[in-house]
């Protein structure tokens, strides 16, 4: 190492310093690399080393880190709506991949903090003064560039949040007069977000924007090198010092603090991977925190005034900042200091105020918080399902679309909750708009059936209470049965018998497996089946006994097959034929038609699996 950096004056000719490493000498002969290193590290700092310079150096290293981690992520990432989320999840499954993605995610945010700090330092030290105006302008032009760089990166994970962000951003672009709508079309790749959108964003994120940024940055750094680092207007008499090691050590310490924070966040928290994009998932998109100020600004300008927030104010701020050196020239030293400090206070203060008020608004919005919590649950579930089964061919959105636990409640709320509730013992769940049919929570289980066979409940709101069947044969039969009991003992005995019947029916539904029952329970099960065969087959069919037509079939009662029949067409002979049916609609009465059913075949299966609580559950942690 020591041969790399020898203390020789910068302007010395490419020296043939003898070295222990002959091949390094050979390399130096051909490239004069030692001269290059000396130029960088043996530079004189007229105002001495400064912590402030380290911010810019750190910013530069963050860009390098983004490029390196970005390249590594590129080895796996696959940009299309069908594969984006799946490939990012695939990266996340590898511990190193998750760490690299985390670094990429958090270093991007660190860049914005550093960018802001750099801007403020340059303003306060008046480092933009002649001859460094072009350093200032190129630096400012990096703001929209870096923002675009980040904006095109966030949706790449193919998450619902990212996709709705880009949807909104497309609309913002469209507010620009004349060219806006065209640009929006080009960015989205058509009229709707789709496969092409992600490919376009990917091209911008890893192709065009890095190329532009490199060009701009190269110019910026060349100008910095040409005119040297500016220590600012305060020309205290400091002894000039070399860059190495006084400034380098400061840079490394600042870098360590920033990168340390980034690494810990990447390692311990990780980059989020939100729920895969699916238009069915409602969410109110928010931009990343560094864009919240612009988001908040749009609250104040609606309709035709929107362009003020999306274009005019941001452009005005940028143009004003660009003209700061010109204004500064016209000021006296005193006024200039006041001017620069007020620009910082206004700029930074305005930015913080907008950002914080947007955050506060969301924090107070309970509905928004609840929807965010729900989305987090969904994303965890999608990740669990992808871990367990891989991602289906249709893409990651199918993970939740084919998941009974996710789709079931939505289908129920849309199609069934007009009449049925689905609430557990504690009243949690989906409450019917107007409860006019039995509560279907745990339908067909021992507990549910035992409740139906209970004279105190059968005509109550949880069961037949709000239907015509409250006065029907079934309710009548249960009431008569219990009314005929003359003593409390007899009633207890009847209740025990009904429990055996409930066990037998839960067995029909498949909730009770014979192999899992002990001897006592098996006896009870047989007793229950016996009871059905004696007291219920007058009206019901049960396996080979009884007839259809007067009451629902109890064979396979509550099983997936029974439910499929009942929900598809309750007016069928097996269920509620003729005028037995009160109001239960037929949801899939044309099994062979592709359309025209209220529930498709897939939806029906999802709903049934959900009613039967048959879904994958994560292993309890």
């Amino acid at each position, binding site marked *: 190492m020591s041969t790399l950096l020898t203390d020789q004056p910068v302007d010395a000719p490419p020296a043939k310093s003898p070295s222990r490493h002959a091949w390094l000498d050979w390399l130096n002969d051909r490239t004069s690399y030692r001269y290059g290193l000396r130029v960088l590290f043996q530079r004189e700092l007229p105002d001495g080393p400064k912590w402030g310079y380290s911010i810019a150096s750190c910013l530069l290293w963050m860009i390098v880190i983004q490029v390196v981690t970005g390249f590594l992520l590129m*080895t796996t990432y696959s940009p299309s709506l069908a594969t984006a989320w799946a490939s990012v999840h695939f990266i996340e499954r590898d511990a190193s991949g998750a760490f690299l993605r985390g670094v990429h995610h958090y270093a991007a945010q660190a860049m914005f903090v550093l960018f802001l700090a750099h801007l403020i330092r340059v303003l306060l030290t008046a480092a933009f003064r002649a001859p460094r105006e072009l350093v200032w302008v190129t630096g400012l032009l990096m703001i929209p560039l870096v923002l675009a760089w980040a904006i095109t990166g966030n949706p790449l994970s193919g998450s619902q949040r990212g996709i709705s962000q880009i949807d909104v951003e497309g609309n913002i672009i469209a507010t620009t007069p004349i060219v806006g709508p065209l640009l929006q079309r080009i960015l989205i790749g058509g009229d709707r977000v789709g496969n092409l959108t992600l490919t376009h964003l990917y091209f911008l994120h890893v192709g065009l924007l890095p190329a532009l940024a490199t060009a701009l940055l190269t110019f910026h750094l060349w100008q910095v090198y040409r005119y040297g680092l500016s220590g600012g207007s305060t020309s205290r008499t400091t002894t000039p010092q070399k860059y*190495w090691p006084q400034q380098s050590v400061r840079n490394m310490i600042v870098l360590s603090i920033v*990168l340390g924070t980034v690494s810990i966040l990447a390692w311990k928290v990780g980059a989020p991977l939100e729920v895969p994009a699916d238009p069915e998932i409602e969410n109110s998109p928010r931009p990343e925190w560094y864009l919240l100020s612009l988001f908040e600004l749009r609250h104040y300008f609606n309709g035709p005034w929107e362009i003020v927030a999306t274009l005019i104010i941001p452009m005005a701020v940028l143009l004003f900042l660009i003209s700061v050196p010109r204004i500064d020239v016209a000021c006296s030293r005193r006024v200039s200091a006041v001017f620069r400090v007020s620009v910082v206070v206004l700029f930074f203060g305005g930015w913080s105020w907008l950002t914080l008020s947007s955050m506060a608004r969301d924090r107070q919005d309970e509905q928004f918080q609840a929807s965010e919590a729900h989305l987090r649950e969904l994303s965890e579930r999608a990740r669990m399902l992808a871990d367990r089964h891989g991602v289906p061919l249709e893409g990651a959105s199918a993970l939740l679309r084919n998941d009974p636990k996710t789709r079931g409640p939505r289908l129920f709320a849309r199609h069934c909750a007009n009449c049925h509730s689905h609430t557990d013992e504690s009243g949690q769940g989906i409450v019917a708009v107007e409860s006019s049919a039995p509560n279907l929570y745990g339908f067909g289980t021992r507990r549910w059936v035992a409740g139906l066979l209970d004279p105190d409940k059968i005509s109550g709101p949880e069961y037949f209470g709000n239907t015509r069947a409250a006065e029907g044969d079934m309710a009548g039969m249960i009431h008569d049965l219990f009314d005929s009991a003359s003593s409390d003992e007899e009633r207890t005995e009847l209740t025990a018998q009904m429990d055996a019947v409930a066990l037998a029916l839960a067995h029909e539904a498949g909730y009770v497996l014979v192999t899992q029952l002990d001897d006592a329970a098996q006896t009870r099960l047989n007793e229950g089946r016996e009871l059905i065969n004696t007291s219920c087959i007058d009206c019901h069919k049960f396996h080979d006994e009884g007839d259809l037509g007067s009451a629902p079939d109890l064979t396979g009662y509550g099983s997936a097959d029974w439910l499929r029949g009942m929900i598809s067409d309750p007016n069928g002979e097996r269920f509620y034929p003729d005028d037995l049916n009160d109001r239960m609609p037929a949801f899939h009465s044309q099994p062979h038609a592709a359309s025209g059913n209220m529930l498709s075949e897939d939806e029906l299966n999802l709903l049934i699996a959900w009613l039967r609580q048959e879904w994958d559950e994560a292993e309890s942690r």
Partner: protein
Amino acid sequence: MNRRSFLEGLSRSLALLWTGVLVFPGVRYVMATIHRENSSGGTARRVARLADLPVGRPMSVAITGNRQDAWTTYPNQSLGQIFLVRRENNSEDPTQVQIDAYSTVCPHLKCQVQHDPAKKQFVCPCHRGAFDLEGQPLSKAQLGHDNPVPGPLESYVVSVVEDDQQELWVEVNYDA
């Protein structure tokens, strides 16, 4: 150690540290692909009814299952073929019948091995490799020419299981 060399050492160490923090996971991430297999997971699959298996004569059966390609799962794909050889007819306990399962992929250059009922051999059509019905390569003396195969056919763990309908099935622990 003077102040200057301390600062130099500190700068270099920190630079090295952070390079390491990024290079180590980077290299590990790229290396992870070396061990990655587009696999179907090693699960037991029911491949044939015991009653359909003749004694002593190899039968080739298809293995179907989910194929995993990086992040995508392709359901019910053909994963390959295997030979089942039932060794004996009856035993007291049919779940104890000895059955062997061999890969149909030649260990030489991955050609598809075929069963030659006349010679009672598994033969590889590509380079005249040959195995006996135990999957072992035949010697030059037995063959009359060189046998290019480097080793025996891969074999799998087989068990006989009974389903709810009291039907006996051959289950193969296949991972590929």
